[in-house]
């Protein structure tokens, strides 16, 4: 657990970067600091490992006052990842990753073995071990940065915009992998970003900071989107927050069963299977491949890859309503494809069905609100 207690940072030039921050980042969870440029995210983060000394207030690491430990000891127990990775250009990837273990006095062999293990963990080809940072792409360097921070298995990780310098596709991959890693490792993480979508995607809780260094709201991502505390937060989380909040709503959908076709089926089979002019093609494992327009298969011809329309996204049957709605809206047939955890077809839903489900959720929430208001008043 990391606890900020009335923390203030005033720079020598008079800038108040952080103004009386009180906040608890629970153990094993990801707490995201988000807010506009200059709101004190980096300053707050760097006060935890004392790269910046607070002007007043206390930061606790569990029951340890961070101001009372030596800087090096404190930092060696905290993983630190920064925007441009900050890899050491003169050291190979294995040696970069082994930095903290070596500082802690591990023997070389053990540190190396640990590096290689971590490379695998973060999805780096072991052939990169002997390479130098300049030989890696930005995304790969960022993975090394994460591996390096994890090397001595610190319980706490501080990450300052670690994925912001890579392109959106790579960023998405890094985020997904980061979440997978965290589900295995369960670190206490403070993650800084100025991107609200990233905050909402990664955070167990999100702290929205305001310029001037005050905390505007600390809430779960879903709560932040559905119940922003003031105009600043509402404006910051964005206009389509209602839609994005669906990302946190899951509900069992009644999937309609779907007649499927497979490669090699003839036009008659497709016509028979199709509904409203579209049939869904699947492989042997019943994984959806794409939609076939029934009328587009010439008689005597067979279904093949060239006839597939692949526009529809797939939604997990136990996933969010947002994903289900997106699947329905993006599907050429108007029927969103739901799959199970193995990627096999469960059935389909229409946008209308998803919206109906959303409505019933909203009703339930309104009722809760009303009850809350009554009992509160």
């Amino acid at each position: 657990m990391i606890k900020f207690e009335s923390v203030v940072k005033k720079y020598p030039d008079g800038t108040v970067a952080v103004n009386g921050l009180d906040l608890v980042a629970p153990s094993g969870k990801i707490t995201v600091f988000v807010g506009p440029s200059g709101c004190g995210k980096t300053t707050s983060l760097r006060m935890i490992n004392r790269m910046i000394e607070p002007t007043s207030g206390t930061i606790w690491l569990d029951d340890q006052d961070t101001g009372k430990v030596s800087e090096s000891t404190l930092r060696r127990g905290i993983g630190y990842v920064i925007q441009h990775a900050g890899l050491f250009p003169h050291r190979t990837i294995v040696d970069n990753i082994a930095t903290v273990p070596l500082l802690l006095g591990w023997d070389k062999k053990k540190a190396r073995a640990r590096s290689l293990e971590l490379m695998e963990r973060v999805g780096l080809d072991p052939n990169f071990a002997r390479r130098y940072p300049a030989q890696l792409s930005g995304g790969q360097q960022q993975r090394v940065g994460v591996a390096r921070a994890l090397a001595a298995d610190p319980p706490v990780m501080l990450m300052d915009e670690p994925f912001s310098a890579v392109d959106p596709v790579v960023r998405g991959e890094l985020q997904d992998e980061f979440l997978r890693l965290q589900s295995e490792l369960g670190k206490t993480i403070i993650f800084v970003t100025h991107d609200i979508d990233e905050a909402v995607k990664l955070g167990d809780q999100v702290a929205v900071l305001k310029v001037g260094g005050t905390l505007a709201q600390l809430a779960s991502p879903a709560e932040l989107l559905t119940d922003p505390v003031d105009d600043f937060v509402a404006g910051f989380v964005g206009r389509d927050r209602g839609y994005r909040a669906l990302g946190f709503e899951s509900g069992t959908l009644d999937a309609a069963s779907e007649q499927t076709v497979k490669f090699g089926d003839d036009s008659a089979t497709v016509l028979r299977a199709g509904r409203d002019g579209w049939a869904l093609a699947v492989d042997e494992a019943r994984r959806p491949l794409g939609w076939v327009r029934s009328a587009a298969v010439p008689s005597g011809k067979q279904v093949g890859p060239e006839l597939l329309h692949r526009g529809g996204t797939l939604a997990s049957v136990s996933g969010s309503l947002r994903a289900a709605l997106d699947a329905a809206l993006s599907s050429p047939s108007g029927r969103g494809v739901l799959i199970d955890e193995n990627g096999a077809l469960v059935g389909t839903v229409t946008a209308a069905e998803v919206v109906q489900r959303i409505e019933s959720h909203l009703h339930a929430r309104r009722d809760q609100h009303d009850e809350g208001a009554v009992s509160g008043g």
Partner: protein
Amino acid sequence: MINGIIEWLSDGEHWSGPDGITARLLEHLQYSFSALAVVLLIGIPIGLYIGHTGKGSVAIAGSANALRALPTFGLLLYLVIGYGDKLPTDWIYLGPSLFVLVVLGVPAVLSNTYAGVQNVDPAARDAAKGMGMTGMQVLLRVELPNALPLILSGVRSAMLQIIATATVVAYVTLGGLGRFIIDGLSQQDYFQMAGGAILVAVLAVALDLAFAVIQRYVVSRGITGRYAAPAANADVVAAESKASV
């Protein structure tokens, strides 16, 4: 002319004895490397300190430039005439000579060392600190290795300047390759004079080449960009990871 010089250089008698080429060459190297050693002892620590802390950079940049502007020969004569008699006998000429060579070499080493450290990627420095390296560890493990190319090029240019300029010490009765130039001039033996100059040039080029080779081996391949072949890499790592399990 050329033939005359070659004749002078290839005459075995000119190479032997206490005033032969071999002896003068060794003297020349001795002066130069003594001066260079002092230059490194002064320039590198101060350069590292300023680069690491950022303190005193303005003062140093100014004084390095002022040092550069000092005329070596004038300074040497001034020191010998003005201060020679205050020194022990052995040092009357040697002291001022080494001093001017040191003054000549320090600016290049100092300012390159300082610039090299300053230019280290701030993110790498930040990460090093953030991972719990002490100031000294950041300096020795991150800043110094990354500053090395610039430091070495400073050392290299200081070395070349010193080798070339060490000829002036012959004016104040000392030895070294400068002797041939000065004696050649006064004896109107132009072959000897040109031969001496050529020897200085050849020495400078030879040392420069030797230095380039050293530089190749001490600077990390991650910085020079001369990476090893990838196939070899994979084998090494595979072998190592097996060894370490």
